[in-house]
């Protein structure tokens, strides 16, 4: 995979020598901003088993009862583990494992069941997902290919490394590094808002809560795009000053 996209860094670096760094980097950001939701919706729906035809004759449900084992404690709590396996017409396999703890003490608060879902996709879907990730890698290379030369050209030598290093590492380390945490928190928050609305019987506030995490990269890229478009001077290419 890396062999496929590594040359794109070189290609966009080379192209930026010809047509300018700013235009390519801004184009990469803009295409990403406009297409993120579409790409991730497609990725989500590719693995969504609700869109697939289930082969009901192959569905199995196994339930196992066991005691909760705690070291040094005599407990009467029990576990009910239900494993549901489903197969779909396109070759997709689905497994759902639900573990419910039944407490012996009926006055104790009910423990929320643990749920683990596994989807094994077919070969076609696998390649479809690889392609959708690859498209996003193109956007990355459009921004990252020219970035080293772009940053060097942006600042005078007196303050060059400080000016390059600080924003680069804040951008990568802080904003990039926190993406999984923030995106997951946004998705969880949207999911909870939908759950509350469902319980209250009102309209769901989020149509696709699983896409809410995308607002973080979209907003950050949007701000970078506007600032880059308005404030970055693409004509200053003197690197010896």
């Amino acid at each position, binding site marked *: 995979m890396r062999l496929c996209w590594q040359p794109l860094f070189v290609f966009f670096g080379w192209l930026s020598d010809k047509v300018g760094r700013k235009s390519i980097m801004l184009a990469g950001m803009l295409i990403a901003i406009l297409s993120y939701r579409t790409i991730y919706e497609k990725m989500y729906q590719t693995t969504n088993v609700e869109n697939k035809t289930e082969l009901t004759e192959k569905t199995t449900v196994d339930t196992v009862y066991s005691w909760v084992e705690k070291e040094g404690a005599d407990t009467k709590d029990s576990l009910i583990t239900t494993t549901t396996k489903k197969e779909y017409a396109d070759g997709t396999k689905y497994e759902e494992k639900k573990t419910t703890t039944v407490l012996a003490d009926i006055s104790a608060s009910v423990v929320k069941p643990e749920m683990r879902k596994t989807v094994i996709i077919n070969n076609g879907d696998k390649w479809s997902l690889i392609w959708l990730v690859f498209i996003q890698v193109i956007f990355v290379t459009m921004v990252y290919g020219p970035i080293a030369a772009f940053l060097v050209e942006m600042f005078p030598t007196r303050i060059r490394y400080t000016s390059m290093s600080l924003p680069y590492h804040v951008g990568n380390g802080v904003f990039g590094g926190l993406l999984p945490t923030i995106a997951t928190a946004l998705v969880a928050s949207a999911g909870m808002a939908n759950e509350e609305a469902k319980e209250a019987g009102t309209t769901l506030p989020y149509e696709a809560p699983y896409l809410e995490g995308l607002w973080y990269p979209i907003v950050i890229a949007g*701000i970078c795009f506007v600032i880059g478009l*308005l*404030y970055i001077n693409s004509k200053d290419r003197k690197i010896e000053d």
Partner: protein
Amino acid sequence: MNLIKKYAGIIWLLAGVAAGYYLLIEQAFPKFGTGKAEDLIPALIYTFILCPLIVGSLLTFGLYALKGEYNIES
């Protein structure tokens, strides 16, 4: 173009204030009150990492833009 850059500084200043309000009042403070670990981590990130960086950067950037620091002399 210089005029747009300059007056867009007001937008960046307002965006900084809006980001601060959203990150602290809308997101972080309600999460501090829940007492759950899964809420505490994002709340700490919003308050001590993202808020100073985003709000500080937008306000500083907006201020300098309004002063005309990014203007290009023809």
